[in-house]
């Protein structure tokens, strides 16, 4: 499954919600869709799910245009909106059965599919509960189950972790990993970047409707190397090491995470190496000098300005 968004644009009157963005990802990938509020994430996702028509551009799912062939395209997409709409007097099983019927899944197979999806999302034990009585975490699970009911090769998840407690988040993360192992292409938007960093191998950053960066996390981090981060341990008190580090030009920030000192170094690996030489030159007994991976949060803060489209 190859997903390609090509020069996607969506204008609302004079507002450019999505402004000429292009990206691609494929099966087995979990791609984080990152951007401040109002950046155009939900609009882009709704276009990809065939729910909205773009002003210009197109999205291709395995070469099938969502614009020209929305009926074919939507069978390949499972869309999970940011919240599960309220349904009164509907149990989880009835709700999933309803959507299975809506996708034209017939008798025995429908029963098997519903039971299978409920087992996968761990809903079997509560399948007779009414939807409007569920907690936020349970509702998100039901919403994910609904998106999976027709076994789509691609999943679009809009803020699936919003409002979830830590346990529910961990469960959702495991579910997404399991889905990626089933070779599904997953696009997931979230504000909780630490969560995304743990499950995503790639990310798309947008702001004011414009694409800022897209690619694997390493690639994106590499594109923006203005700083590198290292963890330094020495046979001297951490406070002393921190003071010495702050005397070196190019060290912009230091932290004490508990064991050793974390330092942000202005520049690339060469500059990092110069810092180590300086420490050794001063006779600091360094026992560990470990480059740290730059997190999604750092990249996000580096490349976005928090502007709305």
């Amino acid at each position, binding site marked *: 499954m190859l997903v390609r968004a090509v020069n996607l644009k969506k*204008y609302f009157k*004079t507002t450019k919600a999505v402004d000429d963005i292009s990206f691609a990802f494929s099966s087995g990938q979990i791609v984080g869709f990152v951007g401040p509020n109002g950046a155009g994430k939900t609009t882009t996702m709704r276009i990809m799910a065939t729910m909205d028509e773009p002003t210009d551009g197109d999205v291709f799912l395995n070469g099938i245009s969502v614009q020209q062939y929305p009926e074919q395209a*939507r069978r390949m997409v499972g869309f999970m909106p940011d919240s599960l709409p309220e349904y009164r007097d509907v149990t989880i099983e009835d709700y999933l059965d309803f959507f299975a*019927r*809506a996708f034209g899944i017939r008798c025995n197979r429908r029963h098997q599919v519903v039971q299978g999806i409920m087992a996968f999302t761990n809903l079997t034990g509560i399948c007779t509960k009414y939807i409007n009585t569920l907690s936020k975490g349970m509702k998100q699970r039901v919403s994910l189950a609904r998106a999976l009911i027709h076994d789509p090769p691609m999943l679009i998840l809009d803020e699936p972790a919003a409002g979830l407690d830590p346990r529910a988040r961990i469960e959702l993360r495991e579910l997404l990993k399991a889905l990626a192992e089933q070779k599904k292409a997953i696009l997931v938007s979230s504000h909780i970047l630490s969560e995304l960093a743990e499950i995503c191998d790639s990310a798309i950053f947008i702001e004011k409707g414009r694409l800022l960066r897209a690619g694997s996390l390493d690639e994106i981090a590499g594109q923006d190397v203005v700083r590198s981060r290292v963890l330094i341990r020495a046979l001297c008190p951490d406070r002393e090491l921190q003071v010495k580090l702050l005397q070196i030009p190019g060290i912009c920030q230091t932290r004490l995470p508990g064991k050793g000192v974390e330092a942000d170094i202005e520049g690339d690996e060469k500059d990092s190496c110069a810092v180590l030489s300086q420490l050794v030159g001063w006779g600091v007994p360094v026992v560990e000098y470990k480059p740290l991976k730059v997190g999604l949060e750092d990249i996000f803060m580096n490349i976005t300005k928090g502007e709305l489209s």
Partner: protein
Amino acid sequence: MAVGVLDRLGDMANPIAVKEMRQAVKGRILTWMLVCFLMVQLVIMGIGMLTSEYSGADYQGGRTLLSFLLLALLVVCLLFLPAIFGLRLSSERTEGRIDLLFITDMSPYSVIWGKTLAAMGLTLLLFSASMPFVTLTYLLRGVDLPSIFLMMGLNFVVVVLAIQAALFLACFPGGLISRGIRFLFGLGGAFFLLSMMTSVSFAMLSSGIGSMLGTWDFWAPALTVIGFLLLGMGLLFVLSATAISPASANRAPVVRLYLLLIWLCSSVCCLLWFLDMRDYGLLLAWLICMLILFSLCFMASLAERQSYGVRLRSKIPRNRLLRIPAFFLYSGAAGGISFSAGMIALTLGAFYLALFFSPYPRWAFNDDVHLQVLTCCLYFICYGLTALMVRRLFFPPLSSNSMTVTIALLLLAAGSLIPFLFAWVVFRYPVDRIPDIWYLGNPLIVFIEKRTLEMTLTFTQIWAAVILGLNGPWFIRQIRNFKPLEEAAHDPAISQPVETE
């Protein structure tokens, strides 16, 4: 084997209908409504039985009791059922729940059909709960079984019509105020239908309608009325499905084809009745109804898209001959305006042809009402086309399509009021002596002052010609832009973006 057949039947059921029925069965509202309804019927029956010795003397007991039972049935079915289904759909529209259905295999038509089926199912349930009681009235005399079944059948059709109207009103998304206004409007309509059906039922029972069932004199008007009720129901169904369809979809063809069907059926029916009754009033009534219908269609067309999106273009026929009817039928302001104007012209043509070839003396027809309605209709067209031009000239191309209708209504209000106020305030004419010319912008003047008919008709004809000329280049551009995807991709002139709704 039996289970297999049942499963297969279950598969054929509309998913929405299944879901709605399950919701109804699991919810408390229906249970309470049914229990209360049965209790009310028991009370009515009890009172009826106790007092039957008085009314029984003139053999009216059964009929009176039946009237009360029908009233109770209509109160429940006309006030509560449409409210339940309407409010549920309205909240689904507001919360965007319907949107999720459009990424399944379900079409907007099957969504509305499912809602209608579920509503019909619950209506049938209430009618069947009422059936033993109403059948019992037969034993109290004063009413025969055919009359009872006829009244039940007629009321069922009317209830389904009311539910369809409620679904239509609920289809439009909107805030609390808009929903509130629509709810009050629907409630008013339900009370109107309730009072009308109560009096109609009573009148029909009193006239001994059951004895007329074997005659064509009964069935001819009955079938006509039922036919028009079904056509109205169908129109509401089609409009509801169109209203919930995504803005990017090609929504118009089914509506316009259905309007064409209404036009054909009603014209044939009207002609047959005219030949039978020799009454020109029938032709006139048909003309007025059709002119109102297509004027509304014209106003709705103004709010349609002015550029064709990829989804619509991918459905435009490549064959140039097929593209001509497609232009009139597909979504788009220019096509909609042309279709409405064409249907108005066709209606007028058919009316004058019927008058010309009428085998009955034409002196029987000397009514100006058709000209008054035509003038009013021309006013709407002129205001609409003027609004179209104003929007194009003074508003950005990506402004909302519905703005054209708003501009048209503002122009209508301004045209009707400002000249009148000008004459009154600046020229100090007494209100009752303002010359007719100052009323030229007001479409209602043709109905208030019949003598202005000639002047207003001439004025609207000139206005229509001028505004049509001014909008001409836009129409030509729209026709040229109406191309399938492949042709549009190679045309550098077609690059304007799709506007949002």
